[in-house]
């Protein structure tokens, strides 16, 4: 890994980093990835992904849920007439 890789990952994750932190992260990530690389040596037969997969159904009925729309709207960083206001995207 080099500093360009850290910058690219930060860009993908939409996180702004200072130059100092980029260097720190490069060092930490190198050592952590070096450790978890052990997984390469694990010999695993091809297993089917069966873990925890099951269908969960419910009746298609309307049920009362106790949550507060007021509290949700109140926490929008910017709102207008009860709608969430965001910056222009295109």
């Amino acid at each position, binding site marked *: 890994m080099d500093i360009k*890789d*850290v910058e690219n*990952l*930060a860009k*993908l*994750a*939409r*996180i*702004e*980093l200072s130059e100092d*932190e980029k260097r720190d*992260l490069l060092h*930490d*990530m190198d*050592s*952590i*990835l070096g*450790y*978890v*690389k*052990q*997984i*390469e040596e*694990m010999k*695993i*037969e*091809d*297993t*089917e*992904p*069966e*873990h*925890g997969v099951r269908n*969960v159904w*419910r009746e298609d009925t309307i049920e009362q*849920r*106790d*949550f*507060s*729309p007021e*509290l*949700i709207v*109140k*926490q*929008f*960083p*910017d709102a207008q007439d009860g709608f*969430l206001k*965001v*910056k*222009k*995207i295109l």
Partner: protein
Amino acid sequence: MIDLDTLTITKARVALDGKIFSAVDLAKAYLAEIEKKNKELNAYLEVYDDVLDQAKEADERIAKGDSSPLLGIPLAIKDVILIKGRKVSSASKILENYTASYDATAIIKLKKQGAVFLGRTNMDEFALGSSTENSAYGVTKNPHDTNRVPGGTSGGSAVAVASNMALASLGSDTGGSVRHPAAFCGVVGMKPTYGGVSRYGLIAAVSSFDVIGPITKTTEDAQIIFDVIKGNDILDSTSVPDNFYEKISLKKELIIGVPWDLINQEGINLEIKKNFEEVVKSFENLGYKIKDIKLPNCLALYYIINFAEVSTNLARFDGVRYGLHKDGKNLLEDYLLTKGAGFGKETRRRILLGAYVLSAGYYDAYYGKAQKARIALRKEFIELFSEVDLILTPTSPIPAWKIGEKSDPLSMYLADIFTVTANLVGVPAVSLPSGFMEIEDLAQAGKRLPLGIQLMASHGAEDLLFEIGKKFEANIAL
């Protein structure tokens, strides 16, 4: 005066129902302790201002002859579980002023019982860490030695119980976050089977590992809370249906598996090993059969999945709908600034690591391989539990370390070696206090550090953990 040192939920229930003291008296006693200790220990991020009102309501119900196991019992709640109308921040700046708009399912169940919520407790930001040092609101201190960490990530919840600032508490366990601080603070911490308690209203860290669990003074208290909060929930499709796992019948002679290979390797503190060997002998004396088993070191596997899911789960904190918002020139700049300022160091590190292990060129080598290894491990465990009833290890390979001592993140990850396996496989586990160890610089002050052992059982076999836990407590003098 209520003797908080020896008080348990069981004893408090008798006293409340017998009108020996009221729920208001009890709440006042805990508020007084919080007033005295929290400034130094920093277990609570917020103490609620309506504690006595809640207690009064409980007293009114008691006066009417109402009784339920947790009616009027003062609890601390980890700052990651939603209570409607109250702040919940996951100890992060990005959620500093966030107010929950609904109750977590576990909270609804506790409210029905009439439990009293004292406040929300400190933790590692987004439940990422092993020491509560990663909180955006300062470290929580271990009451046994305030120079040391309380363990993590539910450090505040463990300290609250260990220092009489709550009778019991809720934590959440992703890779040991309930058991690890329980061991460091000398209390009981229980991680239920994955899906045994609903995750609805629990802020997600690693969705396929997370589970809410109790931190208490006794095994019986942990059982009381677990029995209240457990159960299938329509709002959490990963919660297991009742009777999903075959009920195991209790046998006369139980076999405890001990992975000696893992325990005898380098990096395990010698005092902890000595304490553990004594515990094994005690179990033998109690009539359990000990069997040597093999367990792999699962840390690499655990952390790859942890990074991947953390990276995905935390992507939603973008400053658009709620939480911190930093204004930039355009939407992209809003994201960059908000996430840069809102997430702490360890959180940023894990998000990037997750992005790495999930990226196109490395997916197969890391995340894809880890998923396969996880399935293989689960199969291995199901087989293992046909040979043994329980698996015994120390909870942590090292005792509580000094605050700031582990600045290298990898060295802290290694402290989770015994606890992560239960989360990978989804089995229940409990950490029980197993004694103390002497530390040179503490001996003069007459202080010692608590140690803990961990027991794992097969899926859905919580009752077995409670049974053996009670026996252990009754027969082992700490």
